């Protein structure tokens, strides 16, 4: 069902966990659909210095979460806001059609965490 890259990120997920005292926290998804992702960020100098995720969900949900953490680490907040769910799926070499909707929310979780950071800082 999944390609090797997805399987690699699923079985060896990068940046799993939760940062202590994070600068931003984003949670998206809906337990009804079976996919919830929580991203915690450490921001330094307008860049994502560190990022961790925790995900309740299927293989695609976990793999996209892992993938997005690799993609945005080191980016400026503006750059990270440009990354879309679609690009995450592409970076993984594609996902099965039925997984493109509810299981592919990782970029949104990052965006939510950045918004949370900006809100807390009064930047929004």
């Amino acid at each position, binding site marked *: 069902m999944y390609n090797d890259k997805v399987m690699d990120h699923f079985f060896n997920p990068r940046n799993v966990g939760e940062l202590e005292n994070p600068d931003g926290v984003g949670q998206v998804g809906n337990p009804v*659909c*079976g996919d919830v992702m929580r991203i915690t960020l450490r921001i330094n100098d307008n860049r994502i210095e560190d990022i961790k995720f925790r*995900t309740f969900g*299927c*293989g695609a949900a976990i793999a996209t979460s892992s993938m997005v953490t690799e993609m945005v680490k080191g980016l400026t907040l503006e750059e990270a806001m440009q990354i879309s769910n679609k690009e995450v799926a592409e970076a993984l070499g594609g996902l099965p059609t039925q997984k493109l909707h509810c299981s592919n929310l990782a970029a949104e979780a990052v965006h939510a965490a950045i918004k949370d950071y900006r809100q807390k800082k009064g930047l929004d």
Partner: protein
Amino acid sequence: MSSQPNAQKLVYLDHSATTPVRPEVLAAMLPYFAGKFGNPSSVHAWGDEARKAIDDGREKVSSLIGASPDEVIFTSGGTEADNLAIRGVAHARKAYGNHLITSQIEHHAVLHTFEALQKEGFRVTFVPCDKHGLIDPDDIRRAITKDTILISIMHGQNEVGTIEPIGEIGEIARSHGVLFHSDAVQSAGKVPISVGDLNVDLLTLSSHKIYGPKGVGGLFVRKGLRLAPQATGGAHENRLRAGTENVPGIVGFGEACRLAKAELPEESKRLIELRDKLIAGFLREIPDVDLNGHPILRLPHNVNISVKYLEGEAMLLNLDRMGVAASSGSACTSGSLEPSHVLLAMGLSHETAHGSLRFSLGSSNTAEDIDYVLEILPPIVKKLRSMSAFGPGSSF
């Protein structure tokens, strides 16, 4: 089976999805592909031979459920048999009433067929179940009106394994003069079934769930009952199901039924032991696990658990990598959004329903298989929980 690099062992625990064809069954089928390949309708030796083969298959299938051979119609599988029973009665008897009764926990082959009939104008009552997946015969009794023409309640629930009180419901149906269908796809060959004792008028069987080939199923139709055929064409199967008969399939199905009947008492005892060992092990080894389905009124081969804070597919993929095949009630495995309608009907939350796993046992499984699963699932659960957004403390 493609190789699983990390697997120390291959353990198939998805027998409710499908089973391998038994060697004896395959051996019985083999002559009918190339040597004895005739069409049962033909007027020559090849045809006679094929006709005899399906007569013999019909005899064996009917014998598993205590029916007479002319009460069994062969179909392409359980789904077609369910469709033929339900649409066949609804269409044949709509002059007598337009109310139908079924349950919320039927297989999709039954549920979606009733939903299709709703669109045609039939009124359908979907009775609920309790937290163990058990249907209350009194709910059926109360649902019956003078317009009720059919009741359909499954015999053994395919996801959670609960065995429904079919005999009692059959008596209620009989005493109200309402036809009664039961989907026994998961029960046949696993628990004794007698269409006489159960008071059913129609009963669905599927070959590939009992070590017979895929592509063949059966419908018991009580003598004298008239159905509206759903596929029209040649005058096959008592004019109820057109299409050249799947002769090797029917031969295999027959042999599978014969063997299932002969081995049922011992094999079901063996499966119950393995089942109870697996259930006890899960409850002991993994925290925050619940058993789904009825603790006692349960199919011998079914284990269904909810593993809290986790989603099913993620566990299945990990089990698969370790060589273990199971299934899940999570929506993610079916491509829909909602998790199993059965678990929701039993009152589970969406999150818990997403985290359900079904292990269905079969003839090849041994106590060592159970030990292996009990060894590998706890660390999988631990690992996945360590990355889950939910946990005992979460708002979950």
